[in-house]
């Protein structure tokens, strides 16, 4: 169906937002932004202020849960994360599984939690890693979210996903915490799982990093 009439049109102007986003994708960012876009202070300030923002407690929890969801979907998730991080130029941040684990331990819900907050660079690296892993796993995410897949097949996928996520949560999280108990409650777990998978799907690709970062910075009480 031809809904809108196609005519010649369009205009051209500078492509600064696109350039800035590309620069953001290729970390390290802030110094480069300040240097490259001195002539656009207002635009740069908006971008830089978001980049300087430190993830809060809820943001850290969600970020670690997303990584846990990635591990749920990919049995060899730990190795895949290291490989992906080296592919996107984050080998220095995540030189080994231990380094990655140490960063993830900033999640206050973990059994072995670390005090303090993640630095902006570290959280940005983890966000980029989640986005890249989501891009890698996108076909699986798509299958799980699609209403056009057969119900019984998709039901089994979700069952398996929920069970593996539950196992990982029980293995790594502090089960005495109310938030962790809520994650394991049948009443909430399926909706939380779906929101995690949907978040991963919408975080994949070039625009996903900014979207996910903004979402993790939400002022959730």
């Amino acid at each position, binding site marked *: 169906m031809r809904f809108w009439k*196609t005519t010649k049109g*369009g205009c051209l102007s500078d*492509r600064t937002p*696109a350039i800035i986003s590309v620069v953001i994708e290729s970390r390290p960012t802030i110094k480069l932004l300040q240097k490259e876009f001195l002539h656009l202070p207002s635009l740069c300030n908006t971008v830089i202020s978001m980049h300087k923002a430190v993830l809060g407690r809820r943001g850290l929890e969600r970020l670690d849960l997303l990584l846990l969801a990635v591990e749920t979907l990919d049995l060899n998730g730990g190795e895949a994360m290291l490989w992906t991080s080296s592919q996107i130029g984050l080998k220095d941040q995540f030189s080994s599984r231990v380094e990655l684990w140490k960063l993830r331990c900033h999640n206050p819900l973990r059994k072995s939690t670390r005090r303090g907050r993640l630095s902006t660079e570290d959280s940005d690296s983890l966000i980029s890693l989640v986005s890249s892993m989501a891009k890698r796993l996108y076909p699986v995410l*798509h299958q799980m979210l699609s209403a056009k897949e057969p119900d019984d097949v998709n039901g089994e996928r979700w069952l398996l996903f929920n069970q593996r996520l539950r196992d990982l949560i029980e293995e790594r999280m502090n089960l005495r915490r109310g938030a962790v108990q809520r994650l394991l409650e049948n009443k909430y777990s399926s909706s939380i799982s779906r929101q995690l998978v949907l*978040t991963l799907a*919408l975080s994949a690709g070039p625009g996903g990093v900014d*979207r996910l970062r*903004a979402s993790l910075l939400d002022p959730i009480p």
Partner: protein
Amino acid sequence: MKHSFHYEHAAARLMIEGLPDYSLGHDDAVLGIVSGWSLTLVGAPELEGKREHLLALMEAVLPYSRYVLSGVDGVFGDVTGPVSIQKIDNKHVISLRSSKEGIEPLQIMLDDAELSDLVRCLDDLRFDPRIMISWNLPRDQPLPRNHVVGNIPLAQRFGVPLLGTSFFALIASFLLIVPIPSGNEASPPQTIKSLPNK
């Protein structure tokens, strides 16, 4: 030289056509002027339009996806304009309104997978280095506190403060019952033992 670029993800296929803008010094490989675009979504009619329509689609869908990521619903895009999107019964409903009179609005219902396909196509388009067009889309920002808080269930929002307040009230009322010793009561005589003189 006319260009045609395609962006495809499972259920969505976006095609954009245009020309380089030589007046701005573009080389032959880039697209600076949009002459047309089309969007094919599986199970929905093909959409075509001008640059303005594509921009309206991006302005509605991309902020909506940002809010979906935070689990917050709402209507995005101008409800009287060409494109708006909202969540109805676990489906993402895009309403398209033609500028021509007498044409009924078209509604396209997407599931989560189709929405993410569409968002990825739009992302690919706006981050494509071959497309030299400034879309002037708002940057993704953390949501205002009232948007996020409004989405939290009442029991979860007010549960802890209510519990704390009632606990405080209970302690306060208990302390009110406890009698305060009056000051004019004679104190029991104290026996002072005299120390033996050395």
